[in-house]
C-alpha cells in the first residue's frame, strides 16, 4: 500500500494552514488534502477496520514495516477525509514509540482545529486517533 504523509509532513501542513486567513481557504486546502489520500481498497473496508463514528464512516488499516507504522484511512465524507490526511501526516512512517508519544492535541491546537477532535463532533476522528495510539502502544 502507498501511504499519505511520508512526503507531506505535519510541519508542512501547519505551515500551509497558518498562511491562510479565512476559513474558506483553510477548508479548501483540507478538502484537497483528503483528495490526495490514496483510496483504501474495498477489501480493506472491513468491519474490523471500521472506526465507529456517529455520522460518517471512517476506516483505518495499518502495517508495521521495518519498525515503522504505516496507516491508510478513508471516509465517505470529504472534510473528514481531509482531517484524516492531517492526522496521517503526523503519524505515518514513525516508530511505535513516536506514535504512542505524539501529542496530537498540541498539533490540532496549532492547526486551530481542536474542535474537530472533540468527541461530541461525532466525526470519528477522536476514535481514529485513539486507535492509532493503541496500535502504537501495542507495537512497542
Amino acid at each position, binding site marked *: 500500500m502507498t501511504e499519505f504523509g511520508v512526503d507531506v509532513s505535519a510541519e508542512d501542513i501547519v505551515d500551509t494552514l497558518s498562511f491562510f486567513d479565512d*476559513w*474558506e481557504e483553510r*477548508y*479548501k486546502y483540507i*478538502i484537497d488534502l483528503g483528495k490526495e489520500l490514496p483510496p483504501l481498497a474495498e477489501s480493506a473496508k472491513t468491519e474490523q477496520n471500521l472506526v465507529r463514528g*456517529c*455520522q*460518517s*464512516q471512517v476506516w483505518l488499516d495499518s502495517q508495521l514495516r521495518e519498525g515503522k507504522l504505516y496507516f491508510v484511512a478513508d471516509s*465517505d*465524507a*470529504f*472534510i*473528514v477525509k481531509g482531517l484524516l490526511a492531517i492526522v496521517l501526516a503526523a503519524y505515518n512512517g514513525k516508530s511505535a514509540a513516536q506514535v504512542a508519544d505524539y501529542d496530537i492535541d498540541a498539533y490540532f491546537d496549532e492547526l486551530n482545529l481542536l474542535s474537530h477532535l472533540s468527541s461530541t463532533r*461525532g*466525526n470519528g476522528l477522536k476514535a481514529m486517533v485513539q486507535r492509532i495510539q493503541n496500535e502504537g502502544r501495542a507495537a512497542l
Partner: protein
Amino acid sequence: MSHFDVAEVRSRFPILQQEVNGQPLVYLDNAATTQKPESVIEAIANYYRHDNANVHRGAHALSDRATEVFEGAREKVAQFIGAPSKDQILWTRGTTESINVVAASWGEQNLTAGDRVLVSAMEHHANIVPWQMIAQKRGANVEPIPVDADGAIDMAAFESLLDERVKMVAVGHVSNALGSVNPVAHIIELAHKAGAKVLIDAAQSIAHWPVNMVELGCDFYAFSAHKMFGPTGMGVLYGKRELLEAMQPYQGGGEMIESVSFAGTTYNQLPYKFEAGTPNIAGAVGLAAAVDFVQGLDRSAADRHEAELLHRARAELAAIGGYPLVGKAESAVAVLSFVSDFAHPQDIGMILDQQGIAVRTGNHCAQPIMDQFGIPGTVRASFSLYNTHDDVDRLIAGLKKAKMFLA
C-alpha cells in the same frame, strides 16, 4: 388574517442575539431542541432565588410555595393539552422516559407471547427500542407500519396489519427526521376499532398546534418541555385514567408510596405513584412558563409563518439543484430534510457551521427509515416560529457556497 410579528417574538430569545464564527447565528436545529425565551429563563432563576424547597413534605412556607408552583404547573399542562384531570399528567424526564414508562409498566401487564406492537417505520429510536425491550421480555413482536417514498404512512398497509393480536400502536404525530405529519386521528380510530391502545409521541408536534386529549382520544401522549421552549430534563406523560390506575409503578422510592413496611408497601395515588424521588421542580416551573409563552402567541399566525418559511425554503433549495429532498409528504411541519448529490451530509453541515448556520446532520435517531431510503443520513434544517425569511436566505446562500466547495 393577523400579522405575526417575528421580530418581536425573536427579541425575547437572548441566545439568538449572538454571533457564531463571526456571523449572526442562524439556528435551524429546532427539531433537536428549541431555544428558551427570557420568561422561561427568568421563571427558573426566580424559582431558585425565591421559592426553592422540596415539595409535598415540608411543614414550612417555602415548601408550601414550591408545592404550589409545582402542582400549578401540572394544572396548567392539563389545561394546555385538554386532559380531563391533572392527575393524568405524569412528570418524566422527557418523551423518551414517558414512552419507557408505558412500555415497561403497561407492556409488562398487557403484552403476552405472540402479541404485536406496531410502530411506524419512521419512528425515532425512542419509540422503537423501549417496545423491543419489553417485547423481547414478553415474547411479543414489534412490527413496522410501512412508510411510502414521500415519507407518509401507508394507511392501507396499516389497516391490513391490524388484527386482534395488535395490542399497541405507537406513532409519532410528526416525524423528527422528515417533518411528515401523520394522520393520528385516523390512526387512533382504526387502532381502537381493532382493540389496540395508542401512544402518540408528540415530541415534534407539541410546539405546533393546540391539542385536546378528550377529542383526540389517544390512550397515552408523550412530549418533552425542551422542544416547546421549556427546559431540558422535563417531560410529560398523559394517560387515560383507568390505564394509569391499573399500571404498576415504574420506579420505587420516596413520594410514590402510601405506606412502607417490611410486611408490604402500598402505593400512592395518581400521579404520584409514578413519580419516585424528588422531582424536577424547576423543570415544572420552566415548563409552565413555556406553556404561558406558547399560549400568549397567535398560534395559527405562527403556524402560517412557519409554513411560509418551509414553502420558500423548499422552492429555493430545489432551485440550487443537487440537494434532493428526503420526505416530501404533503402534510409537513417546517423541516427541510435533504441529501446532496455531491457530498456527505456531514460535509454540508460543517460548511454551514463555518457560516454560523446550525443544522443537524446524521440519521436523526431514525436509522430504519434512513436504511429504507438507502442513505446514511440527511441534512436537517428545522425551523421554529422565531426564524425569519433572512434565516432562509442565509441557509440558501450557505448551501450554494457548500455546493461550490464540494461539487
